[in-house]
């Protein structure tokens, strides 16, 4: 097969792609959403920083995990090339096993109550997901520690998807933890979700659990990524939670206010830091406590 053959075959395969009724309007709507989101996040960050500087932040010292319980951003945007392990301690430690109280307490008198809800029940979806995820992680892997906040972001997708990515250390191994929750049809199966070797089982409350062990995408200097992927579906609630643990030690792209993308690299070639059972426990726990709008 020559390169010309390949080009001909591939181009011949492209089907007619009818445009949507108003692509321009859709694009402008997306851009507007991103801009609104960006503006609100910037404002929330500014308020947080001003409050912190003025000594207005009061409270018990944060959640047991040292993470501000609000779903709104509680830290400056993470460095897109944050290496792990970082030689510099995080200004906002999120090590949930850390005995050191968080420098950013989880509640304070605020003119923006919706952005800074009480630590008990975060009012935002992002906050509830973060709290549920950290709790699930603490229970499933008590010795694990995150490098920074596990901050959930809205994907702006039609399926109400929220996701977070963070570097994690557990059992002496480094890697990346990704948790994503979204609305689903409730009919998702191994066949519909993943092409790789996938095992389907049933959770304690009737959840459908799809597990894909020891697989991954990409490599770094010949060191492959090894990932565990667990998808939990609650058919009745039409909810799907995905937990991914892999051996990537650098996050090159976080979900942000302006775009939703998660990318990591720096694969160690080792097993991921959590086991399949731990990933499954986290996914089940988060799914049990998640209620998407």
């Amino acid at each position, binding site marked *: *097969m020559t*390169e010309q*053959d*390949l*080009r*001909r*075959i*591939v*181009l*011949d*395969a*492209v*089907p*007619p*792609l*009818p*445009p*949507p009724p108003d*692509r*321009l309007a*859709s*694009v*402008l709507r*997306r*851009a507007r959403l*991103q*801009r609104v989101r960006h503006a609100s996040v910037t404002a929330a960050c500014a308020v947080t920083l001003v409050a912190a500087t003025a000594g207005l932040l009061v409270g018990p010292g944060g959640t047991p995990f040292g993470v501000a319980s609000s779903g709104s951003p509680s830290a400056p945007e993470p460095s897109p090339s944050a290496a792990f392990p970082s030689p510099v301690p995080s200004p906002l430690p999120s090590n949930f096993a850390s005995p050191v109280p968080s420098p950013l307490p989880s509640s304070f008198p605020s003119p923006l109550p919706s952005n800074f809800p009480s630590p008990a029940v975060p009012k935002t979806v992002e906050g509830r997901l973060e709290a549920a995820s950290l709790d699930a992680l603490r229970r499933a892997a008590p010795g694990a520690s995150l490098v920074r906040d596990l901050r959930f972001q809205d994907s702006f997708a039609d*399926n109400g*998807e929220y*996701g977070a990515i963070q570097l994690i250390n557990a059992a002496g191994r480094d890697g990346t933890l*990704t948790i*994503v929750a*979204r609305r*689903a*049809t409730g009919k*998702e199966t191994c066949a*519909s*979700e*993943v*092409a790789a070797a996938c095992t389907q089982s049933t959770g304690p409350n009737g959840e459908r659990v799809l597990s894909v062990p020891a697989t991954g*995408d*990409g490599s770094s200097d010949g060191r492959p990524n090894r990932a565990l*992927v667990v*998808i939990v579906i609650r058919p009745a609630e039409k909810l*799907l939670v*995905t937990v*991914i643990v892999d051996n990537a030690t650098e996050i*090159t*792209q976080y979900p942000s206010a*302006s*775009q939703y*993308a*998660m*990318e990591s690299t720096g694969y160690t070639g080792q097993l991921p830091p959590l086991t399949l059972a731990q990933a499954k426990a986290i996914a089940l726990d988060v799914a049990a406590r998640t209620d998407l709008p």
Partner: protein
Amino acid sequence: MAPPDLERGFADFVAARSDALLRSAWLLTGDAGRAEDLLQTALAKAWRRWAAVERADSPEAYVRRVVFTTYVSWWRRRWRAETPSGELPDRPGHGDLAGTVAVQDAVTRALGRLSRRARAVVVLRYVEDRPVAEVAELLGSTQGAVKVLASRALAELRADPDLQSLVLDGANA
């Protein structure tokens, strides 16, 4: 509110270049819905900087770069798992429909077996016929890495039995 001229220029660009960009997006994603999603994501990003993009030598090159970098950075989307419909877009109701669908299926499966970065390289290098230097620049990689990736991907595609049969069919037609 964006100046009317700016929005008009962007609207003209969307109308004129979307089809070509959508074709690339389809080759990357293998799915019409995801291709449209990828294109719109890239266009929305471009619109936020359109005043500068429009003044550039080639606004299309900028948007195309956003399409490819967004695609590569979407690698986790496989696991986020948009539910595939299992249906390929319709062709006009004449000709060999089954054969056409089979070709699309074979090509998307063969490309789907490549890594996302390799697939992007194949589309840019072999389908769009872009020079190695441009591919490397578009993907933020080195020329050497692109050459290696392109060579390996081509070898994989050459060994793909589905594509081999398509080549033979083409030669016999």
